[in-house]
């Protein structure tokens, strides 16, 4: 079902350490109730693509909040804030988890919420989504779009901001997981995705992985040469179906 009418606006949320952050919030019009999605942007910043993805999710019936993970670097435009965060080595996993958790609380507090929340992200946001699934309680679904560094092969890649490889926390994953990957992506590589899947199977987790031939990293990004229309169209359909089953109206019917 499509929701042609929606509201999209900038909202405040209570993030890590109680810091007041800003987020892009798009939701279908009407009383719902709607499942909610916390959408995590990638390293280069809180950008047009993130807002577009949030609106796509709202169009398909989900209330979506996309926090600006670098709001603490203001003043400046989102890309200026991202540049400062990058120069500092990125933001810490603890801070991102605090902000994501605050956004999940925001979604559940709304009168049109059905109480269910998913987390979804692209690239470094995919990694952080997986991490959220392992660290934040009471999430109802996780969508990892080509998150690299879930598996860390070189210990030197662990930093004070990102001290733990998310794969090492997989035992704590309780929500169903959807993973989308391009088979031409070097990071995560097909081998790393295989190893990720082995861990999930061993632990008996509920998951579905979809891998796309002819697609590399970031193949949903319609503004970049790596965009792959057929693979992206299929991938989005998988996202809508997965979210519908886990946080949509069907998921709340007793």
């Amino acid at each position, binding site marked *: 079902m499509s929701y042609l009418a929606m509201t999209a606006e900038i909202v405040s949320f209570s993030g890590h350490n109680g810091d007041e952050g800003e987020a892009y919030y798009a939701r279908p019009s009407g009383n719902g109730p709607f499942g909610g999605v916390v959408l995590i942007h*990638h*390293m*280069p*910043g809180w*950008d047009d693509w993130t807002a577009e993805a949030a609106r796509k999710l709202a169009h398909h019936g989900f209330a979506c909040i996309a926090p600006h993970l670098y709001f603490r670097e203001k*003043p*400046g435009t989102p*890309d*200026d804030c*991202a*540049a*400062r965060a*990058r*120069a500092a*080595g*990125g933001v810490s996993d603890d801070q991102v988890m605090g902000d994501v958790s605050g956004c999940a609380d925001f979604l559940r507090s709304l009168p049109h919420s059905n109480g269910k929340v998913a987390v979804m992200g692209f*690239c*470094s946001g995919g*990694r952080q989504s997986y991490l959220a699934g392992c660290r934040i309680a009471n999430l109802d679904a996780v969508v990892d779009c*080509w*998150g*690299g*560094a879930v598996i860390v092969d070189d210990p030197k890649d662990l*930093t004070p901001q990102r001290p733990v490889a998310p794969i090492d926390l997989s035992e704590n994953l309780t929500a169903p997981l959807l993973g989308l990957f391009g088979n031409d*992506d070097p*990071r*995560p590589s097909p081998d790393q995705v295989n190893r990720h899947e082995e861990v999930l199977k061993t632990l008996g987790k509920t998951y579905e992985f979809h891998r796309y031939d002819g697609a*590399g*990293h*970031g193949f949903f990004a319609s*503004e*970049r*040469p*790596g965009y792959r229309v057929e693979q992206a169209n299929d991938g989005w359909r998988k996202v809508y179906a997965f979210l519908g089953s886990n946080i949509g109206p069907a998921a709340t019917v007793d």
Partner: protein
Amino acid sequence: MCSYIVEEVALTGSAKGQAGWMSVDTANVYFDHPYHASLDHALGIDFINRKDGARERVAIEISAESARELAKAMLAALERGEMEHGALEHI
């Protein structure tokens, strides 16, 4: 995958941004998904003044091929320029 790798270069000079000319003391150089350029990956350079708190920046995002051509052009301009200015000093 997004990268947090940044090569930092201390430098002396000025850059012109939205607010006009400013002193710069650092260039942060990285290769990652761009914010604006229609590329999958771009060589990014942020010229900032770290001593002044890095509030302003002058930024570029260019392709890897362009970055290599730019590096060659920079070295060529320096070589020729230093020779010519050295020649002028003898006039």
